[in-house]
């Protein structure tokens, strides 16, 4: 008797289009296995199904003594460039605006248990991710997801990613109106739309029902829509060109007052302009923020308006407007008062941070705090059952990696919490300093530099006490393992960005400390790096900063205002005691990352017997560059924007010159000479190239020089230059680490002295 398959089991029960797409994907897997499909094409194909790479999928793993090959049985077969077929990967599951039903959550729990490691992970963009999934298991996974109405289509790749929205939409006290049906309509309209298939990079969209609160975070999205009402009519302020990543950009207003019926066509027009004019060759400059920078917002607006005129009328633009209530939720139980008197103290503590009154009397949104965004399959089933019992299908993932249960009757809150607590889901502190968020970092991400999850896990343990103090409780702490910023550290009060440093010839995991970001007003402004601390000192850095804030703040001064007032120079002095890693002999624990007993990256670097004593000259140059960047930031904070730009550029020149001298021996200090020598010795040779983004950071240096960015006094442009200078310095550190304290003879032998 032939074995059953999920395909046969679910035949006739899947939406026809999804069924066909999944069959096609399964066929493409077979073609790739037979060598009949190019690996690059296959990689983009699987990415568009949400089938993503994961750390060590290049078949190499550093076991603490150096990179070692992982022997997978697939041999040479790959699922993309440098991506071994058998290496486990990550499945991203799009959850539009974070909304999921109990049935869907049950299904994801089953899939996590059977095909992953029994953990569901909520991302900062309201997705669910499963890790350690084999590619050959993905078609059946997609079928089972489709059977409960979930598609993974366009969850990754150069496509419109999960459309996010405030988790309080529809139940919020101060929203203009519920943006849920608009997010739903846009999700359906753009999914698979021909106008969004030719992007050079991903495109992220977010909705918010108000301008003031950060739940939607529209300002760092490629396109954001903020709802408002005027004279009884609904409009959206549409912003475009925002993004975090290496150099964060605040989105600019494309349309101040877009009528609701124009929202989809306007987005379609933006998509067509982006597809037609966006960068296609260089991934590093392919997001729409670069198109906006290239043309300017006014010209981009004109192009979009011209494009809009060319669009053929599509009934989907407005059909949904006649049934906006289709996404409304009905409460399962009658509303009731929340009784705190006489309730257990632990419940009251949870209610204070995790229960938020809805606009509807007697109802609350209960936020389930998930440590690091993780919950188990067993916990997921508990959550689904609690939703069925108390609220109906009203679960939403949040951008702070939690899950919200909406429409909880006040009268049920205690019983709900007791059930949550019994399942290990009753922790308080949602949205407080005790609830830091993190990207996957080195745990599973192939781009991670430092262990953002490891640090965040440690912070969770240590910061609980700070949540008791009303001064520090509202602070947000966010951590990214690399410059791609998936942890959204730019908009945290205290952000951490993973970097590595060389100390005595050994790599030490570090985090840049990023201060001054603004979480409120839809993440209105971004923070700047004030310095780097060893990973193991990062918790102390938080303690130092919060203590100084508690003691030094004036009145009800916000953390951001406090940072601005006392200045980054003072903050650097505060951090000085925790900024230096001890020598390896003094404390080797600094040379390992959080939660990882392996020595950090020593396999890439030979350690000579004098490594702990000799400081190569290049390190002085990189240190000087760092100091110049601090000065640039101080100048920026003082409003001396042009001087800040000049200093930031000078720091790039210093770092570049240090590397050139390390390799080639000599170069004059004139920027033009340094640029030429740097290009010749480090870029043409690809020695400076980042393994993933290649020459992106060198381009920052060249463009700053060629476009004379150091002369600008535009605050926004200077802010961007400061970010670019920081990334260039980080890339210089990384390059130096790759080269080793002594340049490899092969490199030195190839390089001629710099032309003078």
């Amino acid at each position, binding site marked *: 008797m032939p074995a059953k398959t999920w395909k046969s089991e679910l035949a006739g029960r899947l939406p026809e289009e999804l069924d066909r797409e999944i069959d096609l994907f399964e066929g493409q897997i077979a073609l790739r296995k037979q060598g009949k499909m190019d690996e690059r094409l296959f990689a983009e194909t699987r990415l568009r199904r949400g089938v993503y790479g994961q750390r060590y999928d290049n078949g190499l793993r550093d076991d603490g003594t150096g990179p070692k090959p992982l022997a*997978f049985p697939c041999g040479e077969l790959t699922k993309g460039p440098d991506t071994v077929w058998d290496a486990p990967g990550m499945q991203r599951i799009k959850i539009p605006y974070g909304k999921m039903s109990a049935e869907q959550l049950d299904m994801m729990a*089953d899939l996590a248990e059977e095909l992953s490691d029994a953990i569901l992970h909520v991302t900062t963009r309201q997705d669910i991710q499963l890790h*350690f999934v084999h590619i050959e298991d993905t078609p059946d996974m997609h079928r089972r997801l489709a059977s409960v109405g979930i598609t993974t289509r366009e969850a990754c790749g150069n496509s419109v990613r999960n459309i996010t929205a405030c988790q309080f939409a529809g139940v919020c006290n101060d929203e203009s109106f519920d943006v849920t049906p608009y997010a739903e309509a846009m999700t359906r309209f753009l999914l698979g739309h021909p106008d969004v298939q030719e992007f050079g990079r991903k495109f992220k969209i977010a909705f918010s029902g108000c301008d003031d609160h950060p739940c939607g975070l529209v300002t760092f999205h490629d396109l954001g829509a903020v709802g408002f009402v005027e004279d009884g009519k609904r409009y959206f302020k549409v912003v475009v060109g925002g993004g975090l990543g290496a150099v964060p950009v605040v989105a600019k207003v494309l349309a101040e007052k877009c009528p609701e019926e124009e929202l989809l066509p306007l987005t379609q027009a933006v998509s067509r302009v982006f597809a037609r004019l966006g960068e296609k060759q260089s991934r590093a400059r392919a997001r729409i923020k670069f198109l906006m920078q290239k043309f300017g917002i006014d010209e981009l607006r004109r192009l979009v308006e011209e494009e809009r005129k060319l669009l053929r009328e599509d009934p989907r633009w407005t059909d949904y407007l006649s049934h906006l209530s289709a996404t409304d939720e009905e409460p399962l139980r009658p509303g009731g008062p929340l009784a705190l008197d006489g309730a257990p103290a632990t419940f009251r503590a949870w209610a204070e941070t995790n229960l938020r009154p809805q606009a509807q009397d007697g109802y609350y949104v209960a936020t389930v705090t998930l440590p690091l965004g*993780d919950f*188990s399959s067993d*916990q997921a*089933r508990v959550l689904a059952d609690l939703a069925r019992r108390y609220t109906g299908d009203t679960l939403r993932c949040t951008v702070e990696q939690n899950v919200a249960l909406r429409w909880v009757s006040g009268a049920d809150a205690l019983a709900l919490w007791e059930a949550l607590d019994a399942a290990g889901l009753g922790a308080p502190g949602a949205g407080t300093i005790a609830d830091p968020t993190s990207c996957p970092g080195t*745990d599973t991400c192939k781009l991670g530099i430092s262990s953002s999850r490891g640090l965040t896990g440690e912070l969770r343990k240590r910061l609980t006490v700070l949540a008791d103090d009303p001064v520090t409780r509202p602070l947000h702490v966010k951590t990214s393992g690399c410059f791609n910023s998936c942890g959204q550290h730019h908009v945290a009060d205290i952000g951490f960005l993973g970097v590595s440093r060389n100390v005595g010839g050994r790599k030490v995991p570090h985090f840049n400390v990023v201060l001054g970001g603004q979480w409120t007003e839809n993440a209105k402004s971004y923070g700047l790096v004030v310095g780097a601390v060893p990973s193991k000192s990062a918790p102390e850095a938080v303690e130092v900063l919060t203590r100084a804030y508690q003691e030094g703040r004036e009145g009800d001064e916000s953390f951001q205002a406090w940072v601005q007032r006392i200045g980054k120079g003072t903050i650097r002095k505060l951090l000085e005691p925790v900024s230096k890693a001890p020598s390896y002999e003094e404390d080797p624990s600094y040379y390992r990352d959080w939660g990882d007993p392996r020595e950090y990256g020593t396999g890439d670097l030979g350690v000579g017997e004098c490594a702990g004593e000799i400081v190569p000259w290049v390190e002085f140059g990189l240190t000087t560059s760092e100091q110049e960047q601090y000065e640039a930031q101080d100048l920026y904070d003082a409003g001396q924007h042009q001087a800040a730009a000049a200093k930031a550029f000078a720091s790039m020149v210093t770092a570049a010159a240090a590397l050139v001298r390390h390799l080639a021996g000599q170069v004059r200090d004139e920027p033009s000479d340094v640029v030429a020598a740097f290009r010749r010795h480090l870029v043409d040779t690809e020695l400076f190239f980042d393994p993933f983004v290649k020459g992106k950071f060198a381009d920052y240096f060249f463009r700053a020089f060629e476009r004379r960015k150091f002369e600008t006094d535009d605050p926004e442009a200077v802010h961007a230059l400061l970010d670019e200078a920081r990334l260039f310095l980080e890339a210089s550190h990384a390059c130096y680490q790759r080269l080793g304290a002594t340049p490899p003879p092969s490199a030195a032998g190839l390089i001629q002295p710099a032309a003078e």
Partner: protein
Amino acid sequence: MTITHAERLQVKLYASATPPAGEDLVPVFHRWIREHVVDDDTLIDVVDYGHVKDGPGVALIGHGADYFYDESEGRKGLLFFRKRALEGDLRGRLQDAFTRTLEGAARLEGEGALDVAFGRDEVLVRILDRLHAPNDDASYAALEPLVREVAEAALGGAVTLERVGAGTKGPLSVRVRRA
């Protein structure tokens, strides 16, 4: 009966007395990767999920199978998860899983610094294959004799079986106890 096609299954032995904390297993599992202690599979990574209550604990991810210092049910134990298909049928896969779980337990017990011991009197078997082995009475009826046969051979004596999680959305599960 389709249950014989079931491919993914777990076997768990419970830690006895005062088990070590999960984080103590992290360096051990990393060393197992470095030393290739499982000679017919590729061990890939270690993940610590200690922050998830009663969750999978510390995972040693492999290509064909994973090992967990598992914390589900609020009880620590060594859980072996066969996730990539082995040739043969469910009986063979169960035999393999019992063997590897017992070997893994012995190996951990040999890690002197850990001071961990696993009982051999109680075993949890879970079939993680809802296609071929849904959690229903028919599946359990087909599974029960297979588990009994394999468990008695592996544990060296008669056993009693108890179905676990009947009527729940969890996987088909059976608790084995030495008689």
